[in-house]
Protein backbone atom coordinates (compact mmCIF):
# COMPACT_ATOMS: atom_id res chain seq x y z
CA UNK A 1 0.00 0.00 0.00
CA UNK A 2 1.34 3.42 -0.95
CA UNK A 3 1.96 6.16 1.56
CA UNK A 4 -0.37 8.32 -0.44
CA UNK A 5 -3.22 5.87 0.05
CA UNK A 6 -2.45 5.61 3.74
CA UNK A 7 -2.61 9.37 4.06
CA UNK A 8 -5.93 9.40 2.26
CA UNK A 9 -7.32 6.85 4.67
CA UNK A 10 -6.09 8.89 7.58
CA UNK A 11 -7.70 12.01 6.13
CA UNK A 12 -10.93 10.14 5.67
CA UNK A 13 -10.87 9.08 9.28
CA UNK A 14 -10.63 12.69 10.31
CA UNK A 15 -13.34 13.82 7.97
CA UNK A 16 -10.86 15.77 5.90
CA UNK A 17 -10.67 13.67 2.77
CA UNK A 18 -11.47 15.51 -0.43
CA UNK A 19 -13.17 14.01 -3.42
CA UNK A 20 -9.91 12.95 -5.01
CA UNK A 21 -8.79 11.09 -1.92
CA UNK A 22 -12.17 9.46 -1.62
CA UNK A 23 -11.87 8.21 -5.18
CA UNK A 24 -8.35 7.00 -4.54
CA UNK A 25 -9.51 4.88 -1.66
CA UNK A 26 -12.58 3.57 -3.39
CA UNK A 27 -10.81 2.67 -6.60
CA UNK A 28 -8.00 0.75 -4.98
CA UNK A 29 -7.52 -2.83 -6.11
CA UNK A 30 -6.53 -4.07 -2.72
CA UNK A 31 -9.81 -3.75 -0.94
CA UNK A 32 -8.84 -6.03 1.94
CA UNK A 33 -5.75 -4.08 2.90
CA UNK A 34 -7.70 -0.81 2.87
CA UNK A 35 -10.18 -2.32 5.22
CA UNK A 36 -7.59 -3.72 7.58
CA UNK A 37 -5.64 -0.45 7.57
CA UNK A 38 -8.83 1.36 8.36
CA UNK A 39 -9.51 -0.90 11.32
CA UNK A 40 -5.91 -0.73 12.51
CA UNK A 41 -5.82 3.08 12.46
CA UNK A 42 -8.88 3.18 14.59
CA UNK A 43 -7.37 0.73 17.01
CA UNK A 44 -4.24 2.89 17.23
CA UNK A 45 -6.32 5.94 17.86
CA UNK A 46 -8.33 4.29 20.58
CA UNK A 47 -5.31 2.91 22.33
CA UNK A 48 -3.63 6.30 22.25
CA UNK A 49 -6.70 8.02 23.54
CA UNK A 50 -7.28 5.32 26.06
CA UNK A 51 -11.00 5.62 25.63
CA UNK A 52 -13.77 3.15 25.36
CA UNK A 53 -15.30 4.12 22.08
CA UNK A 54 -14.52 1.13 19.97
CA UNK A 55 -17.77 -0.65 20.38
CA UNK A 56 -18.64 -0.42 16.70
CA UNK A 57 -15.15 -1.04 15.39
CA UNK A 58 -15.78 -4.59 14.36
CA UNK A 59 -19.04 -3.67 12.74
CA UNK A 60 -18.14 -3.80 9.07
CA UNK A 61 -21.23 -3.74 6.95
CA UNK A 62 -19.42 -2.83 3.76
CA UNK A 63 -19.32 -6.34 2.39
CA UNK A 64 -23.04 -6.82 2.90
CA UNK A 65 -23.81 -3.52 1.22
CA UNK A 66 -21.62 -4.25 -1.78
CA UNK A 67 -23.00 -7.74 -2.08
CA UNK A 68 -26.52 -6.41 -2.14
CA UNK A 69 -25.58 -3.82 -4.70
CA UNK A 70 -23.88 -6.41 -6.87
CA UNK A 71 -26.88 -8.70 -6.93
CA UNK A 72 -29.28 -6.06 -8.02
CA UNK A 73 -27.40 -4.06 -10.63
CA UNK A 74 -27.14 -1.23 -8.23
CA UNK A 75 -30.79 -1.23 -7.29
CA UNK A 76 -31.83 -2.68 -4.00
CA UNK A 77 -35.10 -4.44 -3.58
CA UNK A 78 -37.29 -3.40 -0.69
CA UNK A 79 -36.95 -6.88 0.69
CA UNK A 80 -33.20 -6.69 0.60
CA UNK A 81 -33.22 -3.32 2.30
CA UNK A 82 -35.35 -4.65 5.12
CA UNK A 83 -33.10 -7.65 5.47
CA UNK A 84 -29.95 -5.53 5.62
CA UNK A 85 -31.48 -3.13 8.03
CA UNK A 86 -32.46 -5.86 10.39
CA UNK A 87 -29.00 -7.40 10.27
CA UNK A 88 -27.44 -4.06 11.08
CA UNK A 89 -30.02 -3.19 13.68
CA UNK A 90 -29.34 -6.47 15.44
CA UNK A 91 -25.60 -5.86 15.47
CA UNK A 92 -26.05 -2.33 16.69
CA UNK A 93 -28.42 -3.31 19.44
CA UNK A 94 -26.07 -6.06 20.56
CA UNK A 95 -23.42 -3.42 20.94
CA UNK A 96 -25.52 -0.76 22.55
CA UNK A 97 -25.28 -2.37 25.93
CA UNK A 98 -21.57 -1.75 26.09
CA UNK A 99 -21.38 1.86 25.07
CA UNK A 100 -21.14 4.85 27.34
CA UNK A 101 -20.37 7.54 24.80
CA UNK A 102 -22.41 10.67 24.43
CA UNK A 103 -23.96 11.32 21.04
CA UNK A 104 -23.37 8.37 18.85
CA UNK A 105 -25.22 8.92 15.61
CA UNK A 106 -26.48 5.84 13.94
CA UNK A 107 -28.16 7.63 11.10
CA UNK A 108 -25.94 5.90 8.66
CA UNK A 109 -27.16 2.42 9.30
CA UNK A 110 -30.64 3.02 8.04
CA UNK A 111 -29.30 5.09 5.21
CA UNK A 112 -26.57 2.74 4.13
CA UNK A 113 -28.83 -0.06 3.20
CA UNK A 114 -30.77 2.03 0.77
CA UNK A 115 -28.08 3.94 -1.02
CA UNK A 116 -26.91 2.90 -4.43
CA UNK A 117 -23.35 3.71 -3.64
CA UNK A 118 -21.95 4.06 -0.18
CA UNK A 119 -18.66 4.56 1.50
CA UNK A 120 -17.91 3.85 5.09
CA UNK A 121 -16.59 6.84 6.90
CA UNK A 122 -15.74 6.80 10.55
CA UNK A 123 -15.80 10.32 11.73
CA UNK A 124 -17.42 11.93 14.64
CA UNK A 125 -15.86 14.91 16.27
CA UNK A 126 -18.16 15.87 19.07
CA UNK A 127 -17.10 16.34 22.63
CA UNK A 128 -13.39 16.25 22.46
CA UNK A 129 -11.70 16.88 25.75
CA UNK A 130 -8.24 16.29 24.46
CA UNK A 131 -5.58 18.70 25.48
CA UNK A 132 -2.31 17.02 24.62
CA UNK A 133 -1.05 16.62 21.11
CA UNK A 134 -0.46 13.23 19.60
CA UNK A 135 3.00 11.95 19.02
CA UNK A 136 4.08 12.38 15.43
CA UNK A 137 4.55 9.45 13.17
CA UNK A 138 1.05 8.15 13.52
CA UNK A 139 -1.40 8.74 10.77
CA UNK A 140 -3.84 10.27 13.17
CA UNK A 141 -4.68 13.92 13.24
CA UNK A 142 -7.60 14.17 15.55
CA UNK A 143 -8.25 13.08 19.09
CA UNK A 144 -11.97 13.04 18.74
CA UNK A 145 -13.77 9.90 19.81
CA UNK A 146 -14.50 7.75 16.84
CA UNK A 147 -17.66 6.11 15.82
CA UNK A 148 -18.53 4.17 12.76
CA UNK A 149 -20.79 5.97 10.45
CA UNK A 150 -21.93 5.55 6.91
CA UNK A 151 -22.46 8.42 4.54
CA UNK A 152 -24.05 8.35 1.16
CA UNK A 153 -21.69 9.57 -1.51
CA UNK A 154 -23.25 10.80 -4.70
CA UNK A 155 -26.73 10.66 -6.11
CA UNK A 156 -27.84 8.82 -3.06
CA UNK A 157 -31.40 8.46 -2.03
CA UNK A 158 -32.37 7.99 1.54
CA UNK A 159 -35.16 6.09 3.01
CA UNK A 160 -36.87 7.11 6.16
CA UNK A 161 -38.23 3.92 7.53
CA UNK A 162 -40.67 5.10 10.11
CA UNK A 163 -42.94 2.14 10.30
CA UNK A 164 -43.84 0.04 7.34
CA UNK A 165 -46.77 2.11 6.18
CA UNK A 166 -45.26 5.54 6.02
CA UNK A 167 -41.89 5.24 4.39
CA UNK A 168 -40.84 8.05 2.12
CA UNK A 169 -37.77 8.86 0.07
CA UNK A 170 -35.74 12.04 0.07
CA UNK A 171 -33.41 12.85 -2.76
CA UNK A 172 -29.98 14.09 -1.90
CA UNK A 173 -28.48 16.58 -4.27
CA UNK A 174 -25.42 17.18 -2.20
CA UNK A 175 -21.93 16.85 -3.62
CA UNK A 176 -19.36 14.92 -1.65
CA UNK A 177 -17.30 18.04 -1.01
CA UNK A 178 -20.16 19.66 0.88
CA UNK A 179 -20.70 16.74 3.13
CA UNK A 180 -18.14 17.54 5.79
CA UNK A 181 -19.30 21.12 6.25
CA UNK A 182 -22.98 20.45 6.44
CA UNK A 183 -22.42 17.38 8.56
CA UNK A 184 -20.50 19.43 11.11
CA UNK A 185 -23.28 22.00 11.17
CA UNK A 186 -25.91 19.33 11.56
CA UNK A 187 -23.98 17.59 14.31
CA UNK A 188 -23.55 20.83 16.20
CA UNK A 189 -27.22 21.58 15.79
CA UNK A 190 -28.07 18.08 16.99
CA UNK A 191 -25.88 18.45 20.03
CA UNK A 192 -27.39 21.79 21.00
CA UNK A 193 -30.86 20.40 20.53
CA UNK A 194 -30.03 17.46 22.77
CA UNK A 195 -28.65 19.74 25.45
CA UNK A 196 -31.84 21.79 25.41
CA UNK A 197 -33.92 18.63 25.59
CA UNK A 198 -31.76 17.24 28.36
CA UNK A 199 -32.36 20.34 30.46
CA UNK A 200 -36.10 20.34 29.89
CA UNK A 201 -36.30 16.63 30.61
CA UNK A 202 -34.34 17.05 33.82
CA UNK A 203 -36.48 19.96 34.98
CA UNK A 204 -39.41 17.60 34.91
CA UNK A 205 -37.47 14.59 36.17
CA UNK A 206 -36.36 16.31 39.39
CA UNK A 207 -40.02 16.79 40.23
CA UNK A 208 -40.93 13.20 39.50
CA UNK A 209 -38.11 10.79 40.31
CA UNK A 210 -38.14 11.00 44.08
CA UNK A 211 -34.57 12.28 44.23
CA UNK A 212 -34.97 15.96 43.56
CA UNK A 213 -32.37 18.58 42.74
CA UNK A 214 -29.37 16.24 42.67
CA UNK A 215 -30.58 14.94 39.33
CA UNK A 216 -29.59 18.28 37.79
CA UNK A 217 -26.02 17.03 38.02
CA UNK A 218 -26.80 15.12 34.83
CA UNK A 219 -27.10 18.36 32.89
CA UNK A 220 -23.59 19.33 31.97
CA UNK A 221 -24.25 22.76 30.51
CA UNK A 222 -27.14 25.14 30.12
CA UNK A 223 -27.86 28.71 29.12
CA UNK A 224 -28.03 31.07 32.02
CA UNK A 225 -31.14 33.10 32.30
Amino acid at each position, binding site marked *: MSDQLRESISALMDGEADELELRRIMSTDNDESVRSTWARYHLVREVMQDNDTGAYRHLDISSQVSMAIGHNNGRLSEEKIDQLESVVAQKVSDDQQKTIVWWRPMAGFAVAASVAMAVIVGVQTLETNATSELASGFPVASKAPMTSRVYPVAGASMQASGGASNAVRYQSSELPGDIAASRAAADLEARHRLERYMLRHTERA*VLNNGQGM*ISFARVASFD*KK
Partner: protein
Amino acid sequence: MMSALRHLPLSTIGLFVFACLIMPAGGLVYADDSPQIALSRMSHSFRELDYHGTFSFQRGSSTESFRIAHSVIDGEEFERLEYLDGEKREIVRRGHHLNCIHPGHKLLRFYQQQQAQLGSSANAGVGSFYEFAVNGTGRVAGREVVNLQIIPKDTHRFEHHLSLDKETGLLLRTELIGPGKTVLERFQFVEITIGEPLAGEQFVDAGASYQAYHTEPSVTANVAGNTVGDGWTVQWMPTGFTSTVANVKFVTGDIATFTDGLTVFSVFLESDVDLNLVQRGLEGRAQKGATTAYTRLLVLADRPHRITVVGEIPAQTAQQIAQSVRLVSSR
Protein backbone atom coordinates in the same frame (compact mmCIF):
# COMPACT_ATOMS: atom_id res chain seq x y z
CA MET B 1 -49.99 23.15 58.85
CA MET B 2 -46.96 22.28 56.82
CA SER B 3 -44.66 24.70 58.57
CA ALA B 4 -45.67 23.28 61.91
CA LEU B 5 -45.24 19.72 60.72
CA ARG B 6 -41.84 20.25 59.28
CA HIS B 7 -40.28 20.74 62.68
CA LEU B 8 -41.38 17.32 63.77
CA PRO B 9 -39.00 14.48 63.23
CA LEU B 10 -39.81 12.90 59.93
CA SER B 11 -40.44 9.51 61.39
CA THR B 12 -43.27 11.04 63.38
CA ILE B 13 -44.85 12.36 60.21
CA GLY B 14 -44.37 8.99 58.63
CA LEU B 15 -46.12 7.25 61.48
CA PHE B 16 -48.87 9.81 61.44
CA VAL B 17 -49.52 9.26 57.75
CA PHE B 18 -49.20 5.56 58.29
CA ALA B 19 -51.80 5.62 61.01
CA CYS B 20 -54.25 7.76 59.07
CA LEU B 21 -54.17 5.56 56.06
CA ILE B 22 -53.97 2.19 57.57
CA MET B 23 -57.17 2.38 59.53
CA PRO B 24 -59.76 2.62 56.77
CA ALA B 25 -57.68 0.48 54.45
CA GLY B 26 -58.25 -2.63 56.45
CA GLY B 27 -55.03 -3.81 57.96
CA LEU B 28 -52.51 -4.24 55.17
CA VAL B 29 -49.30 -3.45 56.96
CA TYR B 30 -45.69 -3.09 55.96
CA ALA B 31 -43.08 -3.47 58.66
CA ASP B 32 -41.72 -0.12 59.74
CA ASP B 33 -38.28 -0.91 58.32
CA SER B 34 -39.58 -2.27 55.03
CA PRO B 35 -38.24 -0.94 51.71
CA GLN B 36 -41.67 0.46 50.89
CA ILE B 37 -41.70 2.60 54.00
CA ALA B 38 -38.11 3.66 53.37
CA LEU B 39 -38.97 4.81 49.85
CA SER B 40 -42.01 6.64 51.07
CA ARG B 41 -39.88 8.44 53.65
CA MET B 42 -37.34 9.30 50.97
CA SER B 43 -40.02 10.93 48.85
CA HIS B 44 -40.93 13.19 51.76
CA SER B 45 -37.53 13.93 53.24
CA PHE B 46 -35.74 15.43 50.26
CA ARG B 47 -38.51 18.00 49.93
CA GLU B 48 -39.47 18.63 53.54
CA LEU B 49 -36.13 18.75 55.35
CA ASP B 50 -33.51 21.48 55.64
CA TYR B 51 -30.10 20.28 54.48
CA HIS B 52 -26.96 21.40 52.76
CA GLY B 53 -23.81 19.63 51.74
CA THR B 54 -21.61 18.53 48.88
CA PHE B 55 -21.94 15.49 46.69
CA SER B 56 -20.07 13.91 43.83
CA PHE B 57 -21.59 12.68 40.61
CA GLN B 58 -19.79 10.03 38.66
CA ARG B 59 -20.52 8.62 35.25
CA GLY B 60 -18.20 6.83 32.94
CA SER B 61 -14.72 7.99 33.85
CA SER B 62 -15.72 11.50 34.91
CA THR B 63 -16.48 12.78 38.38
CA GLU B 64 -17.93 16.18 39.20
CA SER B 65 -18.65 17.88 42.50
CA PHE B 66 -21.67 19.87 43.53
CA ARG B 67 -22.87 21.87 46.49
CA ILE B 68 -26.54 21.61 47.31
CA ALA B 69 -28.68 23.59 49.72
CA HIS B 70 -32.33 22.96 50.51
CA SER B 71 -34.52 24.83 52.95
CA VAL B 72 -38.22 24.99 53.61
CA ILE B 73 -39.33 28.55 54.28
CA ASP B 74 -42.99 29.16 55.05
CA GLY B 75 -44.02 25.89 53.48
CA GLU B 76 -42.08 26.51 50.29
CA GLU B 77 -38.93 24.87 49.04
CA PHE B 78 -35.81 26.92 48.35
CA GLU B 79 -33.08 25.06 46.53
CA ARG B 80 -29.70 25.80 45.08
CA LEU B 81 -27.30 23.52 43.25
CA GLU B 82 -23.81 24.81 42.50
CA TYR B 83 -21.47 23.21 40.01
CA LEU B 84 -18.10 23.23 41.73
CA ASP B 85 -16.04 22.14 38.72
CA GLY B 86 -15.44 23.97 35.47
CA GLU B 87 -17.37 27.06 34.51
CA LYS B 88 -19.15 28.71 37.41
CA ARG B 89 -22.86 28.01 37.26
CA GLU B 90 -25.73 27.12 39.50
CA ILE B 91 -29.38 26.23 39.45
CA VAL B 92 -31.79 27.95 41.80
CA ARG B 93 -35.37 27.07 42.50
CA ARG B 94 -37.53 29.06 44.85
CA GLY B 95 -41.05 28.89 46.09
CA HIS B 96 -42.01 25.35 45.21
CA HIS B 97 -44.90 24.73 47.54
CA LEU B 98 -44.78 21.58 49.62
CA ASN B 99 -48.42 20.92 48.84
CA CYS B 100 -47.56 20.75 45.17
CA ILE B 101 -47.26 16.99 44.82
CA HIS B 102 -46.14 15.67 41.45
CA PRO B 103 -47.24 12.32 40.05
CA GLY B 104 -43.77 10.84 40.52
CA HIS B 105 -43.84 11.56 44.23
CA LYS B 106 -47.25 10.02 44.59
CA LEU B 107 -46.07 6.80 43.03
CA LEU B 108 -43.37 6.49 45.65
CA ARG B 109 -45.54 7.32 48.57
CA PHE B 110 -46.93 4.78 50.82
CA TYR B 111 -50.65 5.25 50.39
CA GLN B 112 -50.41 4.82 46.65
CA GLN B 113 -48.62 1.53 47.07
CA GLN B 114 -51.19 0.48 49.55
CA GLN B 115 -54.04 1.37 47.24
CA ALA B 116 -52.40 -0.82 44.65
CA GLN B 117 -52.22 -3.72 47.06
CA LEU B 118 -55.91 -3.33 47.65
CA GLY B 119 -56.62 -3.60 43.96
CA SER B 120 -57.51 0.01 43.39
CA SER B 121 -57.58 1.18 39.82
CA ALA B 122 -55.11 3.92 40.64
CA ASN B 123 -51.65 3.53 39.21
CA ALA B 124 -50.03 0.80 41.17
CA GLY B 125 -46.90 2.59 42.31
CA VAL B 126 -43.36 1.34 42.09
CA GLY B 127 -44.11 -1.87 43.95
CA SER B 128 -45.56 -3.48 40.84
CA PHE B 129 -42.58 -2.87 38.59
CA TYR B 130 -39.62 -3.34 40.88
CA GLU B 131 -38.53 -5.89 43.46
CA PHE B 132 -37.23 -4.41 46.69
CA ALA B 133 -34.63 -5.75 49.05
CA VAL B 134 -32.95 -4.28 52.08
CA ASN B 135 -29.27 -4.91 51.61
CA GLY B 136 -27.79 -4.27 55.02
CA THR B 137 -26.58 -1.05 56.55
CA GLY B 138 -23.54 1.12 56.03
CA ARG B 139 -22.11 4.58 56.37
CA VAL B 140 -22.19 7.43 53.86
CA ALA B 141 -21.00 10.99 54.46
CA GLY B 142 -20.45 10.14 58.09
CA ARG B 143 -24.02 9.02 58.65
CA GLU B 144 -25.59 5.63 59.10
CA VAL B 145 -27.54 4.41 56.10
CA VAL B 146 -29.84 1.61 55.06
CA ASN B 147 -29.04 0.11 51.68
CA LEU B 148 -31.93 -0.62 49.34
CA GLN B 149 -31.72 -2.67 46.22
CA ILE B 150 -34.44 -1.99 43.68
CA ILE B 151 -34.51 -4.43 40.80
CA PRO B 152 -36.82 -3.87 37.84
CA LYS B 153 -39.13 -6.70 36.85
CA ASP B 154 -38.69 -5.96 33.15
CA THR B 155 -35.82 -4.79 30.93
CA HIS B 156 -37.17 -1.28 30.42
CA ARG B 157 -35.72 0.25 33.57
CA PHE B 158 -32.41 0.23 35.39
CA GLU B 159 -31.58 -1.27 38.73
CA HIS B 160 -31.27 1.25 41.57
CA HIS B 161 -29.06 0.93 44.61
CA LEU B 162 -30.05 3.52 47.19
CA SER B 163 -28.49 4.37 50.53
CA LEU B 164 -30.94 6.20 52.74
CA ASP B 165 -30.12 8.06 55.92
CA LYS B 166 -31.34 5.93 58.83
CA GLU B 167 -32.53 8.87 60.83
CA THR B 168 -34.28 10.98 58.20
CA GLY B 169 -34.73 8.80 55.12
CA LEU B 170 -32.76 11.27 53.01
CA LEU B 171 -31.07 9.81 49.95
CA LEU B 172 -27.31 9.97 50.48
CA ARG B 173 -26.03 7.69 47.78
CA THR B 174 -27.54 6.25 44.64
CA GLU B 175 -26.29 4.07 41.83
CA LEU B 176 -27.99 3.20 38.58
CA ILE B 177 -27.01 -0.22 37.38
CA GLY B 178 -27.22 -1.20 33.73
CA PRO B 179 -27.04 -4.58 32.01
CA GLY B 180 -24.13 -6.70 33.12
CA LYS B 181 -24.09 -4.99 36.53
CA THR B 182 -22.34 -1.94 35.08
CA VAL B 183 -22.60 1.14 37.26
CA LEU B 184 -23.95 3.77 34.87
CA GLU B 185 -23.88 6.66 37.29
CA ARG B 186 -23.38 7.33 40.98
CA PHE B 187 -24.42 10.19 43.25
CA GLN B 188 -22.84 10.29 46.65
CA PHE B 189 -22.87 12.87 49.40
CA VAL B 190 -19.42 13.67 50.75
CA GLU B 191 -20.68 15.68 53.70
CA ILE B 192 -24.12 16.85 54.68
CA THR B 193 -25.72 18.93 57.42
CA ILE B 194 -29.33 18.11 58.16
CA GLY B 195 -31.76 20.22 60.16
CA GLU B 196 -30.08 23.62 59.97
CA PRO B 197 -32.25 25.92 57.88
CA LEU B 198 -30.60 28.54 55.71
CA ALA B 199 -32.11 32.00 55.27
CA GLY B 200 -33.92 32.99 52.08
CA GLU B 201 -31.04 35.32 51.14
CA GLN B 202 -28.91 32.25 50.55
CA PHE B 203 -31.04 31.44 47.54
CA VAL B 204 -30.64 34.68 45.64
CA ASP B 205 -29.27 34.43 42.11
CA ALA B 206 -25.54 34.85 41.98
CA GLY B 207 -25.47 36.10 38.41
CA ALA B 208 -24.62 32.71 36.97
CA SER B 209 -27.89 31.06 37.80
CA TYR B 210 -30.41 29.14 35.87
CA GLN B 211 -33.91 29.42 37.25
CA ALA B 212 -35.40 25.96 36.91
CA TYR B 213 -38.73 25.74 35.24
CA HIS B 214 -41.62 24.26 37.15
CA THR B 215 -44.38 22.33 35.44
CA GLU B 216 -47.72 22.25 37.15
CA PRO B 217 -48.65 18.66 37.88
CA SER B 218 -52.26 19.24 36.93
CA VAL B 219 -53.39 21.35 34.06
CA THR B 220 -56.35 23.63 34.17
CA ALA B 221 -58.71 24.23 31.24
CA ASN B 222 -57.76 24.56 27.64
CA VAL B 223 -55.78 21.38 27.39
CA ALA B 224 -57.73 18.33 28.38
CA GLY B 225 -61.07 19.82 27.52
CA ASN B 226 -59.92 21.52 24.40
CA THR B 227 -61.32 19.64 21.46
CA VAL B 228 -60.08 22.02 18.80
CA GLY B 229 -56.69 21.44 17.32
CA ASP B 230 -54.28 18.57 16.99
CA GLY B 231 -51.93 16.81 19.27
CA TRP B 232 -49.97 13.63 19.54
CA THR B 233 -49.71 10.57 21.72
CA VAL B 234 -47.16 7.99 22.68
CA GLN B 235 -48.87 4.71 21.91
CA TRP B 236 -46.39 2.38 23.52
CA MET B 237 -44.43 2.64 26.70
CA PRO B 238 -43.46 0.17 29.43
CA THR B 239 -46.23 -0.54 31.92
CA GLY B 240 -46.34 1.61 35.00
CA PHE B 241 -45.46 4.95 33.46
CA THR B 242 -47.90 7.82 33.81
CA SER B 243 -47.83 11.31 32.42
CA THR B 244 -46.41 13.96 34.73
CA VAL B 245 -49.23 16.19 33.57
CA ALA B 246 -52.54 14.85 34.74
CA ASN B 247 -55.80 14.53 32.84
CA VAL B 248 -54.49 15.04 29.36
CA LYS B 249 -55.82 12.90 26.54
CA PHE B 250 -53.08 13.89 24.13
CA VAL B 251 -50.08 16.16 24.05
CA THR B 252 -50.45 19.58 22.52
CA GLY B 253 -47.00 20.98 23.22
CA ASP B 254 -43.68 19.60 22.05
CA ILE B 255 -42.85 17.66 25.22
CA ALA B 256 -44.45 14.90 27.24
CA THR B 257 -42.85 13.41 30.33
CA PHE B 258 -43.64 10.09 31.95
CA THR B 259 -42.67 8.61 35.30
CA ASP B 260 -43.03 5.37 37.21
CA GLY B 261 -41.92 7.03 40.44
CA LEU B 262 -38.21 6.28 40.08
CA THR B 263 -37.56 6.37 36.35
CA VAL B 264 -38.47 9.30 34.14
CA PHE B 265 -38.35 9.83 30.38
CA SER B 266 -39.47 12.63 28.10
CA VAL B 267 -40.62 12.56 24.50
CA PHE B 268 -40.11 15.55 22.22
CA LEU B 269 -41.80 16.10 18.88
CA GLU B 270 -40.74 18.59 16.22
CA SER B 271 -42.86 18.98 13.16
CA ASP B 272 -40.95 21.53 11.10
CA VAL B 273 -37.86 19.59 10.32
CA ASP B 274 -35.30 21.12 7.99
CA LEU B 275 -34.85 18.63 5.20
CA ASN B 276 -31.22 19.60 4.69
CA LEU B 277 -30.53 18.55 8.23
CA VAL B 278 -32.73 15.55 7.80
CA GLN B 279 -30.35 14.22 5.23
CA ARG B 280 -27.59 14.14 7.80
CA GLY B 281 -29.36 11.85 10.13
CA LEU B 282 -32.56 9.90 10.16
CA GLU B 283 -31.72 8.23 13.39
CA GLY B 284 -29.29 8.93 16.16
CA ARG B 285 -28.51 7.87 19.64
CA ALA B 286 -26.63 9.42 22.51
CA GLN B 287 -25.64 7.94 25.80
CA LYS B 288 -24.22 9.66 28.83
CA GLY B 289 -24.18 7.73 32.04
CA ALA B 290 -27.68 6.44 32.56
CA THR B 291 -29.22 9.00 30.24
CA THR B 292 -30.17 7.90 26.76
CA ALA B 293 -31.24 10.20 23.99
CA TYR B 294 -32.68 8.61 20.89
CA THR B 295 -33.75 10.59 17.86
CA ARG B 296 -35.47 9.44 14.73
CA LEU B 297 -37.53 10.81 11.93
CA LEU B 298 -41.01 9.53 11.37
CA VAL B 299 -43.27 10.50 8.57
CA LEU B 300 -46.55 11.46 10.19
CA ALA B 301 -49.38 12.93 8.15
CA ASP B 302 -47.07 12.93 5.12
CA ARG B 303 -44.58 15.22 6.76
CA PRO B 304 -41.27 14.48 8.42
CA HIS B 305 -41.30 14.78 12.20
CA ARG B 306 -38.35 14.46 14.50
CA ILE B 307 -39.01 12.46 17.63
CA THR B 308 -36.51 12.49 20.47
CA VAL B 309 -36.75 10.40 23.60
CA VAL B 310 -34.57 11.46 26.54
CA GLY B 311 -34.50 9.58 29.80
CA GLU B 312 -32.75 7.30 32.24
CA ILE B 313 -33.91 4.22 30.35
CA PRO B 314 -32.21 1.61 28.14
CA ALA B 315 -31.61 2.62 24.53
CA GLN B 316 -33.83 -0.06 23.09
CA THR B 317 -36.74 1.06 25.22
CA ALA B 318 -36.24 4.65 24.05
CA GLN B 319 -36.25 3.40 20.48
CA GLN B 320 -39.49 1.50 20.95
CA ILE B 321 -41.14 4.49 22.56
CA ALA B 322 -40.04 6.84 19.78
CA GLN B 323 -41.44 4.58 17.11
CA SER B 324 -44.86 4.56 18.70
CA VAL B 325 -45.51 8.30 18.51
CA ARG B 326 -48.61 9.11 16.46
CA LEU B 327 -50.49 12.26 15.67
CA VAL B 328 -54.07 12.55 16.79
CA SER B 329 -56.64 14.84 15.36
CA SER B 330 -59.75 15.61 17.33
CA ARG B 331 -61.49 17.35 14.51
